[in-house]
């Protein structure tokens, strides 16, 4: 068996958490600064050509559906407003991060973003975050896996193999092989990036709600776990042949009963046509 780590020794000895691109960090600072304005945000986006391009492609995608061609970053910022722009910037940054990950994981994560929007609409978390934020939650929920692929590829592969042979969910196999699971590692990355605490804890608890100390944040973690489960049941798990399971407490915590499931899935299935377009934006 491989060396065992806890989250601190893993971060100290093996994994270097990547920084959020400086332009996205600057946007976060500006959005938290009451004296800044939308033109400042647009200027920062324009100074990063890759981010500017991805922002424009996202704004003009059918998924965002603004209904008219947007050709300038300033126009995009004015039309969409602060919250959406912030999430676009995060989404663009995450797509850059996924360039290191596998195609299956990107597909799964985009699907999870779409599923999280559908779950949110019918859950007890409605109103806690807006639908564009929900998409980012899904997109980031397995970001810890990218770090495992990059820094611990052999151990990550061993965990996948163990998951298949012992029919264990991947996060439990990761704990056995590495000592830390992708949800905990993803939470640390999101905290380092300065994204919201509720996003970090939702990622931490999407498989196991007990990982979220603040009970008020558990509904979001539960909703994210449900979005992940829907993707697995839809034939798009994070890794091929993954063991797809969900704790029954997730449904109660998210306030979703069987009655809401058909409506959640209607919404989800209706949005699947956007997945290919969103994935093309990543490359």
């Amino acid at each position, binding site marked *: 068996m491989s060396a065992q780590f806890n989250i601190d020794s893993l971060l100290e000895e093996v994994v270097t958490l990547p920084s959020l691109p400086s332009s996205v960090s600057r946007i976060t600072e500006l959005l938290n600064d009451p004296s800044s304005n939308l033109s400042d945000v647009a200027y920062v986006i324009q100074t990063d050509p890759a981010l500017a391009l991805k922002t424009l492609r996202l704004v003009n995608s059918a998924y965002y559906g603004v209904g008219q061609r947007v050709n300038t970053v300033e126009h995009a910022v004015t039309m969409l407003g602060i919250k959406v722009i912030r999430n676009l910037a995060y989404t663009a940054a995450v797509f850059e991060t996924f360039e290191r990950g596998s195609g299956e994981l990107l597909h799964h994560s985009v699907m999870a973003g779409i599923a999280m929007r559908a779950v949110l609409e019918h859950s007890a978390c409605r109103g806690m975050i807006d639908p564009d934020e929900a998409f980012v939650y899904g997109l980031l929920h397995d970001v810890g896996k990218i770090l495992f692929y990059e820094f611990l590829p052999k151990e990550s592969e061993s965990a996948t193999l163990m998951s298949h042979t012992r029919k264990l969910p991947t996060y439990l196999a990761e704990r056995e092989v590495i000592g830390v699971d992708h949800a905990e590692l993803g939470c640390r990355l999101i905290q380092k990036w300065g994204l919201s605490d509720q996003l970090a804890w939702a990622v931490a608890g999407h498989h196991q709600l007990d990982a979220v100390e603040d009970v008020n944040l558990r509904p979001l973690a539960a909703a994210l776990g449900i979005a992940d489960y829907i993707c697995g049941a*839809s034939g*798009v798990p994070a890794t091929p042949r993954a*063991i797809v399971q969900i704790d029954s407490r997730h449904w109660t915590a998210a306030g979703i009963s069987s009655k809401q*499931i058909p409506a959640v899935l209607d919404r989800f299935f209706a949005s699947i*046509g956007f*997945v290919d377009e969103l994935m093309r934006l990543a490359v």
Partner: protein
Amino acid sequence: MLEWTKQGVAAVASVELTNGQRGRCVLLGPRENPKGAVIVLAGTGSAAETKPVQSCVDDLGPALLVEILCMQERMFGASGLPAPEFA
């Protein structure tokens, strides 16, 4: 996850309802068709009772219902989900 088997054009899996009753879920067509997914329960004597999934949503746990409806969409839906592979 449920173990689905292909029987002709249908997919079949054993299921357990929230009241402990056991039966088989049979997927035959798309979600728009009320009889596209049914639960077959052993009735009294030799008669079997067949119920559309839509009418027994409350008797199916949410995780089980997600599995059934997603598999139905993968087999018969138009949304573009990957088609299932059967053993």
